[in-house]
């Protein structure tokens, strides 16, 4: 139980830190961006929008800000005025979940598998070539790879559309044309995220597995004459994936950062693209809400990783 409470405490502190950063950053900046902003917009905006700014920067204390957020009041968007921030965010969210969520999980699962096999087949040509290759690809800038993909597969070859999440001429909804069209639009951004994110998982899983392979229980499994695949999965793999799950959770913040840029390059109608739009338009209420959302998403993913760890590791289960 202590373990669960400690974890919950960690989530609360992290959330609090994110909210406070949101609250403090505009006030700590030289020249006080908040006051400058208020002055700039006075007289140019209607009272409602001004109120949105007040919520974000005004005289309200941290606690009031916290209270508003807890009730889901993120204010009004300037970019999509007079729509509320909450409504805008809810529109963009499914796109990002479908693209970034699916590809991140895919990268993790595939990368973990390749890393395991690579460590198992240590010293073979496959294992000799993979790690250096992925060390290099994991140093690629996401956005640059996205540009490269657009140039090659849409400008030169014309296989996939260069930007957007769907063809604007189709009707949005659960019909075949729309679904297949949006899938077609998601191939390039998904591939970009996959290629850049997978390297890290391959490398860490490979290294974990190599360490686990020196454990006595792996030698014991060999001594028992178990089939190699059984040793690889339930003895090496299941133990090596435990630290990788923690690593997965810990590095999600980085992955999300890269995914934002991919959405930006592809003009993909998700949270990341909207985030950068809000920065461009100085729509601070929307920007802050999105930053919080991204933090919460990362925390939820960590929670999922915690649950998965507890499921795979009986020792953690007991501590909880």
């Amino acid at each position, binding site marked *: 139980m202590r373990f669960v409470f400690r974890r919950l405490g960690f989530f609360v502190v992290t959330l609090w830190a994110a909210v406070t950063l949101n609250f403090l950053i505009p006030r700590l900046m030289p020249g006080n961006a908040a006051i400058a902003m208020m002055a700039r917009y006075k007289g140019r905006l209607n009272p409602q929008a001004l109120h949105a700014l007040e919520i974000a920067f005004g005289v309200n204390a941290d606690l009031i800000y916290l209270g508003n957020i807890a009730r889901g009041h993120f204010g009004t968007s300037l970019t999509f005025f007079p729509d509320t921030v909450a409504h805008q965010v809810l529109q963009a969210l499914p796109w990002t979940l479908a693209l970034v969520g699916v590809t991140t999980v895919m990268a993790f699962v595939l990368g973990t598998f390749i890393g395991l096999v690579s460590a198992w087949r240590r010293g073979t040509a496959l294992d000799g070539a993979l790690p250096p290759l992925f060390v290099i690809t994991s140093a690629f800038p996401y956005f640059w790879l996205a540009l490269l993909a657009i140039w090659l597969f849409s400008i030169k070859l014309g296989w996939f559309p260069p930007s957007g999440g769907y063809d604007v001429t189709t009707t949005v909804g659960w019909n075949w044309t729309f679904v297949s069209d949006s899938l077609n639009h998601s191939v390039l951004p998904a591939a970009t995220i996959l290629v850049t994110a997978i390297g890290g998982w391959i490398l860490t899983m490979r290294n974990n597995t190599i360490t686990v392979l020196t454990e006595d229980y792996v030698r014991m499994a060999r001594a*028992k004459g178990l089939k190699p695949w059984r040793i690889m999965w339930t003895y090496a793999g299941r133990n090596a994936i435990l630290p990788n799950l923690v690593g997965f959770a810990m590095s999600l913040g980085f992955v999300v950062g890269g995914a934002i840029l991919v959405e930006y390059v592809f003009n993909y109608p998700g949270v990341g693209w909207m985030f950068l739009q809000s920065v*461009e338009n100085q729509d601070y209420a929307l920007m802050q809400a999105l930053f919080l959302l991204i933090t919460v998403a990362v925390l939820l993913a960590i929670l999922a990783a915690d649950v998965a760890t507890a499921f795979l590791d009986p020792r953690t289960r007991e501590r909880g």
Partner: protein
Amino acid sequence: MSLPSVADSVRPAGATVGSGPPEEATRRTAGGDLFRAVAHNRKALAGVGLLLGFVVLALFPGQIAPDDPRAKIYTPGLGPSWHHLFGTTAYGEDVFSQLVWGTRQSLLIAVLVGGLATVIGVVVGVSAGYLGGTTDGILSLITDVILVIPIFPLIIVIAAYERNSGFFMLVIVLGLLGWSYGARQLRSQTLSLRTRDFLEAALVRGERKSYVIVKEILPTMTSLIVASFLGAAVYAVLFAAGLQFIGLGDPNSQSWGTMLYWAENNEALGAGMTYWAIMPGVFVALLGAGFALLNYAFDEISSPALRLRKLETTGVDAEQETAVPIRPPDQKNILEVRDLSVAYASDHGPVVAVDRVSFELGRGEFLGIVGESACGKSTLVYAIARLLGAPLAGEITGGQVLFKGRDMVTLAEKELRHIRWRDYSVVMQSAMNALNPVLTVADQMRDACEAHSTMSKREIEERSKEVLRLVSIDPVHLHSYPHQLSGGMRQRAMIAMALLFTPELIVMDEPTSALDVVGQRSLMVQIKELQERLGFAVIFVTHDMSLVRHFSNRLLVMYAAQVAELGQTRQVFARPLHPYTTGLLEAFPSIHGPKEHLLGIPGQPPDLLRPPAGCRFAPRCPHAVDRCRVEPPALYRVDGELVRCFLHEQAEEPVAVSTEGVA
């Protein structure tokens, strides 16, 4: 043996022995040999090469770039040519010159952010790990929170308020947010170091904490600190380029990210100015790759398990294989080991961990193998069981292991699998490590049964309970996880597992050393009872001679990879022939005999990489004469026993490389 050797790990059988205490050895490796390790690592060399190239570009851009990067003097949008290697921009500037001049900023960002993040990471990580308690709690919480908060969006938020902020603002923000990953690793490394002897010694000496941290802890973590610097540098290069690309940097600065920003704004890719849009990314990727390759190499250097070493058999005496006479196995022996040799690969060449060892084991016999740690006894038994592999990563370089008439050395892994566990099983030192922590005892018994029989689920369950009862464990514990059992129960459970198929041979590697004296005793009694009841033969490895005194039929004393003495247990105890055996006997108290002064053996076993020229025990032997230091003694037969010592030369003829039958 085609097993790849991954040596230099836990027990490289004498590789570190004789070069000072283990801590001393690790410390030296971490600090001084770093340069040599980098020079021997291909990935590290590639990384260093890339980085050096960029350093040259950053230092002398004026000499290398053909043009002023801002001179808008050419035709816009030119393709690549001899003068314009990568064409021109939409503004008529030379792309290559811009790239060269942009290097300086990216490299500077990488180095400054890497440095700042590393300093913070070291201070926070080491203090958290070393000071512990509340300090650790608070610092770790801060570290985790910063690690988890999505840094890139946060930087964007900051940059959004502080638009076009200068170069140093960027460095400080990236540095302040990028230290947490390194700090986490440094903390856990410090934690593991804290209880080491050399730190305690420093504290006992009365050194100040700050002195201990700077002089004792930091040098041992050199490679980890370098790794955290390189990791932060990669992240800085990527994030800075990303920020500049989306227009949150200074649009007038000379950097690769800014180039990408302008290229994107002018739709360079669509407009045919391909190199303008692509080359800055290539440079970012190459710089990042340089740091990442070096980082990866350091990872390998700091954890030796990741390094793959091939054993070079040159230098290892490979002639022994022909020296083994072809002779049919004796039917009353279940196992005959003939001239078995095992070697490890090490940084300094092959290490012979088992040197031409021969012995025989009768059916139902109990053989004890004793010797100090790192004398090769574990390597020997794992070589016999064909279980070498990291961390005991030796290769059999010669000899035969005839088990029930078949040579185990030449069996393929597939053939071995069929006889493993059915015909011989293994019990290891610590069940805590030898049982898979994520499977229940029942699971681990079941997979062995499924691998070798067609028993039904019910039958497997019944058999599992039956063997648990054999070792006096209540079958209710069958579905427990290893960590739920007590130490003694775990060892018994492992022995129960070894009995599943009632094999004819059980190899036991110090199965009791994880237990207290009382537990050891009762487990020994139980093993002996089971052995007499079920009739299996036992090879029992231990460093404690008194433990096997009343249980083993014969004793094999190993010293520095060789057989020192082999004989009937009773005889060895009553009249030890080898001075080393005498020393071992004097090192352990007798349970029944009168009070004696324990002598022990002065000195340490030799470094097997460079064994002494003569008798390997000579440097520590009270009876050594000049001859012992130059001429290696053979095995001599004395009253049916074998001993490797010149003292007994006149007593009998030397045994021709010990291949004759042993009584």
